């Protein structure tokens, strides 16, 4: 039984990762850069329903960034930001509207810093963070919250 749960958890995480990467790649170039609206970040609301989303989103972000224009650095740092955000969202899962804020904040700070420092985006550090944060806000609240509301009502049907 324990093994079954383990396989289920792992596969669920993997599929969430694939979903994240597929949506990011399909909606590129909107998904990359300073003024990005990474729609797939809305998937972070999944971590309000299953902890499997935490490693899953991390892996998804790793692959999406590895295959994107930013390469290995973007993959490593971006996935750390996503994992931290997903952990925060999971911890705040009972505060429905506040939970995605953890992802917005983590990505704004870490990805904004990465773009400023590693990719030499010629904007002040705070502007880099604010731009990334704005894109995250649109994805997590514009799409993430309605999605979370749907998932809440149909949780059983989907198998979450």
């Amino acid at each position, binding site marked *: 039984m324990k*093994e*079954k749960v*383990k*396989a*289920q958890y*792992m*596969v*669920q*995480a*993997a*599929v*969430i*990762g*694939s*979903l994240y*990467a*597929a*949506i990011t*790649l*399909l*909606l*590129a*170039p909107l998904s*990359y*850069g300073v003024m990005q*609206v990474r*729609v797939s970040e*809305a998937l972070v609301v999944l971590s309000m329903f299953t902890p499997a989303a935490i*490693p*899953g989103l991390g*892996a*998804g972000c*790793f*692959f999406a960034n*590895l*295959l994107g*224009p*930013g*390469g*290995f*650095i973007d*993959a490593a740092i971006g996935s750390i930001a996503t994992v931290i955000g997903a952990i925060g969202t999971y911890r705040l899962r009972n505060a429905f509207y506040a939970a995605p804020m953890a992802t917005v904040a983590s990505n704004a700070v870490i990805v904004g810093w990465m773009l400023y420092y*590693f*990719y*030499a*985006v*010629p*904007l002040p550090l705070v502007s880099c963070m604010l731009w990334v944060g704005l894109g995250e806000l*649109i*994805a997590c*609240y*514009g*799409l993430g919250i*309605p*999605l979370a509301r*749907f*998932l809440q009502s149909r949780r059983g*049907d*989907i*198998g979450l």
Partner: protein
Amino acid sequence: MAIKDITLGQYFPGESIVHRLDPRTKILGTFVFLVTLFLVNRFAGFALSAAFIAGVIALSGVPVKFMIRGLRPILFLIVFSTILNLFVTAGTPIVQFGPLTITEEGVYRAAFMALRLMLLIFGSSLLTLVTKPITLTDGIERLMSPLNIVKLPSHELAMMMTIALRFIPTLLDETDKIMKAQTARGADFESGNLFRRAKGLIPLLVPLFVSAFRIAGDLAMAMEARCYRGGKGRTRMNGMAFSGRDAGALCVLVAYFAATIYLRTMGG
């Protein structure tokens, strides 16, 4: 972006010495190369980095045009960053266009940043060009295995990454199909402000979730039916072993790193 334009994994098949290196050597090499790019503080350092990466590209047999193609998606960022650095950096003026001034320091900084960005992209894309994604995740698993001591499940993480990688093309295809089906039913993914557009993606994501979780359920059941028991005692069809060429590559890497440090601290 059309699905056919997405070069998944970007692996360039080959039998070169770089292709045959252990994935751990390649990951470590990429990491060291990327670190050195941030240690460089003068153009001589970049010349060394460029020579090093050019040597590795030549050995790998990956066509140069393939490498340059990798720069295309980031071209906008390079041009944007160059133009801004040219005009924003304060210093000794060279040319003046009305209120805009190009300074000596601006030219230096713009060239410096553009070079770093290009080498950064070359370095990180070369790793995926010469390593199969599955081999890459195997390498990551082995590199992470010491973390088992702190109870980090490295096998499970690598297995999850391998499955995720396997399903990206399947879900890309599925997303494309659902997008077309919903558009035919009148779904609008392209009009309105950003918030409205983001919300407009719900008819895409809901069926996608249902389909993806069905796949997950089926796969978990199949794994259990085949007695999947995690990483303990598991063997590999293709084992991983450090060879003489890996030792040679690591020596070159150490020499390159030492030369970079030398150029940073003592070079003229």
